[in-house]
């Protein structure tokens, strides 16, 4: 039985950022990520699960019970540690409210601090702790009441890049060690792909797609997911299907690609930057481009190439020069098709790709 079941959840907001008919389930022990741009409703959804705000309609069931106190804990974006209490008192606060005994509190705080990787003097106050230590105190406070689910609201977004990468690893290990269900909100797709067992991509109050990182990356359900997941983002080019339905017309070029069955006349072609190659290969599709610019970025050059009226983004190991004419090659099977009007993915009919 799933740990969290959300059914037909609605929430209206006068200022936008509401939720429209959200339904999904999270299994026990899963690391579930809500990913989306700011204002997509991911934090709103988290607040509803935490019972910090009421839903307009719909149901949130946690392990078979209604959402509320006790079943969930939350790690806030700024950790929300009580500044006038020591680290120990912060972690002990929920236990004191449960009116547990002194020794019991001491024991459980010590255990949780250990689980959260805290090796500091617990008599220090939040202001005396580093960013990483604060996160660990917040994690310890979150697990001390032994909640079913831990909610995390962009807990890494206020840290610098280096600390973020190392705490990401720590968070993942923490979740594996405690075996708790985690629901994690972020707008950073790198973080989402690295952490999630499954993730839900949200936009404008709706869930666009749910699945494993691999599934979302390899088969985005629509144009939005395709452009939002992956860095550098997928190249998207408008094209028409030729009357013979054996090739595509993109700008003034003809691509010898047979479109999937059932594709409408207007489509959007998607091709990931890493699927474009400069190595000639007769088995692949070739496109002729003009190099617009190539930015040095160390290991590789970030290349922008003009193809008709569209711009293609890719990477190259060799330096390319502005205005150079170059041919890029890609495999037919690496192309994604989207309906130009609805944005929805058009799957390949045959199982080959």
């Amino acid at each position, binding site marked *: 039985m799933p740990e969290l079941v959300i059914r037909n959840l609605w929430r209206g907001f006068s200022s936008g950022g509401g939720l429209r008919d959200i339904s999904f389930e999270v299994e026990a022990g899963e690391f579930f990520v809500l990913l989306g741009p700011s204002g997509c409703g991911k934090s709103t959804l988290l607040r509803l699960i*935490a019972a*910090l705000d009421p839903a307009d309609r719909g149901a949130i069931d946690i392990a078979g019970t209604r959402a509320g*106190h*006790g079943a*969930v*804990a*939350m790690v*806030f*974006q*700024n950790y*929300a540690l*009580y*500044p*006038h209490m020591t680290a120990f008192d912060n972690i002990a*606060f*929920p236990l004191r*409210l*449960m009116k547990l005994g002194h020794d019991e509190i001491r024991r459980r705080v010590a255990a949780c601090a250990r689980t959260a990787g805290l090796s500091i003097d617990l008599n220090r106050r939040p202001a005396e702790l580093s960013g990483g230590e604060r996160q660990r105190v917040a994690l310890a*406070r979150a697990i001390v*009441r032994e909640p079913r689910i831990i909610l995390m609201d962009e807990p890494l977004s206020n840290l610098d890049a280096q600390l973020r990468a190392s705490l990401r690893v720590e968070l993942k290990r923490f979740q594996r060690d405690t075996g708790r269900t985690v629901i994690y909100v972020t707008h950073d797709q790198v973080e989402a792909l690295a952490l999630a067992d499954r993730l839900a991509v949200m936009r404008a109050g709706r869930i666009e797609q749910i699945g494993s990182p691999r599934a979302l990356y390899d088969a985005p359900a629509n144009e939005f997911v395709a452009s939002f997941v992956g860095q550098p983002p997928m190249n998207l080019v408008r094209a028409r299907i030729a009357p013979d339905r054996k090739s595509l017309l993109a700008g003034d070029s003809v691509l010898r690609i047979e479109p999937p069955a059932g594709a409408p006349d207007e489509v959007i072609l998607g091709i990931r930057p890493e699927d474009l190659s400069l190595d000639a290969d007769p088995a692949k599709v070739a496109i002729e481009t003009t190099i617009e610019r190539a930015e040095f970025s160390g290991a590789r050059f970030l290349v922008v190439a003009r193809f008709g009226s569209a711009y293609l983004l890719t990477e190259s190991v060799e330096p390319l020069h502005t205005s150079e004419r170059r041919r890029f090659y890609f495999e037919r099977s690496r192309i994604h098709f989207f309906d130009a009007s609805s944005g929805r993915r058009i799957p390949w009919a045959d199982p080959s790709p």
Partner: protein
Amino acid sequence: MSRREVSMPHGAGAAFIRRVAALAIVLGAALPIYLLLKQAVTPEIESFAWPPLWLPRRVTAAHLESVFTVVEFRAAIIRSIAVALVCGVSATVMGAMMGYAMARSRWGRRAGMTAVTATRLLPMTAVALPLALAFILIGLYDRPSAIGLALVHSALALPMTALVLFPAFLAIPLELEEAAFLDGASPLRIFMTIDLPLARAPLAAAFILSFILSWDEFGFALLLQVTNRTLPPLLYYYTVFGDVGAASALALLMMIPAICVLVALRTVLRGALMAGSLR
């Protein structure tokens, strides 16, 4: 050439200017206090001497003694302290509630701001007249306990305490309360264990400021306590109708709480002043 020089002079010349400015400030504050001191310990004849005397010729302890021996003085001191304490406590408690409501709800902020702006703009002198009539009618006029005056002072101080405490509560992130809510705390518990301790310094500042406001309030005290006086109107009467020496001694006495607070709580007060709002 440095842009910083525009805003903050440095170098030798600037240091000199700064020292002169500091001296002027100290003298400006110290001179009236010195004059009071002198008048409090010299016979009255010297206070009005022309040309003015900068140093006392004769010294007397009579004025200082009278402050503690004359019954009218003693009663006024106790009454003033009582009124100021009532005002300080009730204005701080009510101000905390009002400031919290302003910090946590948009409606509360709108209502609070309107109330504060209105009370700040309406001339108190004009309000005093119907108030005095109302007090006469309901029997709060000129009571020995001065409970009516304490009420008025609390009402006068409330906008100030609310405006000192509003930014203090506003600065406490809502997430702290939400975290405490998820940790299982009740709303009252959250207010008592999270909000109040974090607003300690501004609460102290609000109490001190409302205490001093009452301690120093003259207009309503003059109008509402015609016979059972507090210190400020008493000082006024002694100044105008009587005894400059005794008045000076009283005035010195009135400065004691201010000086205590200045010395003991300067940093707390300055922090609260810097944090946000204060007249």
